[in-house]
């Protein structure tokens, strides 16, 4: 055995002995109490503001029209809805109670929802050629007071970033609703199509809408920087009740002569929000959480 090999073996043995000794010491140490910082975060109330944007997916399930066709199919009267094209906004509060990775919270918000659709009708001459056509483009907005009840699970917490998933239920109280309809005429009676405006109408339709409710789910992450917790979240809302009052579907409205009537609509949303929340329970005045 050479000297170098001997020294190497000794160093290895010494290292192993040192490691075993250290481990035995660690095993013998008393259980370490959680730090005040960890306790602070383990159980906490959070309160703040929440704002964001939403994109609507109107889902019609009972399609109606003020027109009852005599010689064509009712399917020709169906509206062409635009999914996730119209941006809305929301703003409100974010209050939650957090305990060891699980939090439950309310997010009451004023929510402005937009969606739009298009409808077309054509009338024909005796030879079957199109004589006249009408297109109307409708932009519908509805304002709600929305109250989501959210259960949130923190996937893991590492440093100042903690991703989470969440789900819950929501109830939305309708506050107001309005409709803008733009009518365009196309006259083919002289051969070529002549386009002319048929008017643009804005009407209040609050009475045609109703409160609705549903479930939501999504994911997000909390960022603990600058003495405030910033929460970015994205969710999908599925409604379980039509936002339109079905009793009013068949009644007269200011746009009935265009054939306009609300379908039964389950309004689904993609919401993207930012919350700025603050802890309500401080340890003491000297505590510096971040």
């Amino acid at each position, binding site marked *: 055995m050479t000297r170098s090999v001997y020294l190497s073996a000794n160093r290895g043995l010494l290292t192993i002995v040192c490691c075993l000794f250290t481990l035995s010491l660690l095993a013998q140490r008393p259980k370490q109490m959680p730090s005040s910082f960890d306790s602070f975060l383990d159980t906490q109330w959070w309160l703040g503001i929440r704002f964001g944007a939403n994109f609507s997916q109107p889902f019609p399930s009972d399609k109606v029209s*003020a*027109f*009852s*066709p*005599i*010689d*064509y199919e009712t399917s020709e009267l169906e509206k062409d809805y635009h999914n996730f094209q119209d941006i809305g906004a929301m703003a409100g509060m974010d209050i939650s109670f957090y305990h060891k990775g699980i939090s439950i919270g309310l997010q009451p918000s004023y929510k402005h929802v937009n969606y739009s659709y298009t409808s077309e*009708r*054509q*009338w*024909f*001459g*005796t030879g079957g050629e199109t*004589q*006249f056509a*009408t297109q109307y483009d409708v932009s519908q907005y509805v304002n709600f007071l929305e109250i989501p009840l959210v259960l949130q699970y923190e996937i893991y917490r590492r440093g100042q970033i903690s991703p989470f998933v969440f789900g819950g*239920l929501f109830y939305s109280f309708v506050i107001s609703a309005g409709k803008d309809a733009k009518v365009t*005429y196309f006259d083919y*009676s002289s051969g070529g199509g002549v386009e002319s405006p*048929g*008017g643009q*109408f804005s009407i209040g339709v609050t009475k045609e809408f109703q409160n*609705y*409710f*549903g479930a939501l789910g999504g994911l997000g992450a909390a960022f603990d920087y600058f003495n405030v917790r910033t929460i970015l979240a994205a969710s999908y809302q599925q*409604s*379980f*009740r*039509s936002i339109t009052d*079905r*009793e009013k*579907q*068949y*009644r*007269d*409205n*200011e*746009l*009935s*002569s*265009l*054939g306009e009537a609300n379908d039964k609509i389950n309004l689904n949303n993609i919401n993207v929000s930012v919350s700025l929340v603050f802890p309500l329970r401080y340890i003491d005045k000297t505590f510096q959480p971040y």
Partner: protein
Amino acid sequence: MRRAYIILLAAYGFWSCGDESFDATDSFTKIYDHSSAEVAYHPIDMVKTEEGFLILAATQLDESDFSGVQVIQLDEKGDFVAEQTADVEYVAPVGGFMQVDTGYFFFAMHEPTLSTVLISVTPTLSGFNIATAVAGPSYPLAGSVNDADELLVLTYNPEALQTVISRVSADGTFLQGIGYTIGAGSDVEAQIISHFVDNERSGLPFFCGELAGTGQVYFNGFYNYTLSLVFSSFGDAPDGVLQGQATDGGVSAAMPVIGSNFSLVGFQFNDNFVTPAATLDPNGINSSIDLAQGTISELKSRSKADIVLWENGGNQYVVVAAETQNRQVVLYIYDYASGQMVGIERIGYQNAFTLSSIKVDDENALLVLGSTYVSGRFERAFLKKLSADQLKSFIQ
């Protein structure tokens, strides 16, 4: 396991409570559209059936100056089911559209013979059953049903230059009739002919009925050169006359409430007036202008009008329908006891709406029939059903 059932039940309850139910037959507004730019619908009157509704309409005919006969069948939700057009030799249909037992009747004209025929249809439109009601030259002007389930028909006899009121049984058998002169010369007759061949511009408010329990009939028609409300017991001369002023003044619509107490709408030149409670003298000579209690500037000149009695909560309300300057159909609701207007509702926006008739159905709902101009040009029939609750909400 038990907890799982409870959670599933709760989830189902939460989901299912969103599927609210409602009755689409309670109230609705429907416009009956046709894809042809060449056709137009001129609704006249409607009747409720066990299966839904029937609409009597006039159509344009290439073969005749008179309008053709068309009946449209609707379901209980007011949706179109079927339509049927009578043979072109049957023309000039008139309201009302009447129910006797299980049959639905209206009068029209057999053009080759110029005689008035009684046409009946079934709720499912299984064809037209036609009987001659008034033989000889007679142009139908209006029809109604009396308390004995007999039919009254108002006609014009061009040979005798007479307005004729007749009683007809539901099988078309002529029972009784009497004619009264429209006046010598051709001026009045020309206006009657224009009423038939150019109704949109020159239509006149012909109607007829019977005073309950008296056997005395009334009709709005030409008598002695004047469009008048005439009372008759089928005698050689009328019992009484509420005179108009040629065709420049008279009664647009009238409805007997109790005895000779009427609700009526009248016109004097371009002004319209509503008298919700008027006591008429069916045995005297009076003038319609004396009943005018101020004019209603909202109504268009010589507006078409119709009146029904609607009862709610032990109160009687007179519902008057007419057309506005703004091309809407307006409903004025009057408390019959006080004669005060208690509610207004307007029907129709964006495009013009015209009135055909109104009726109260067996659910105490109000049916409003008329036409609208889809895209501002294509005349289409509309039917609006206002539930009793909706009507009640109009009353202030």
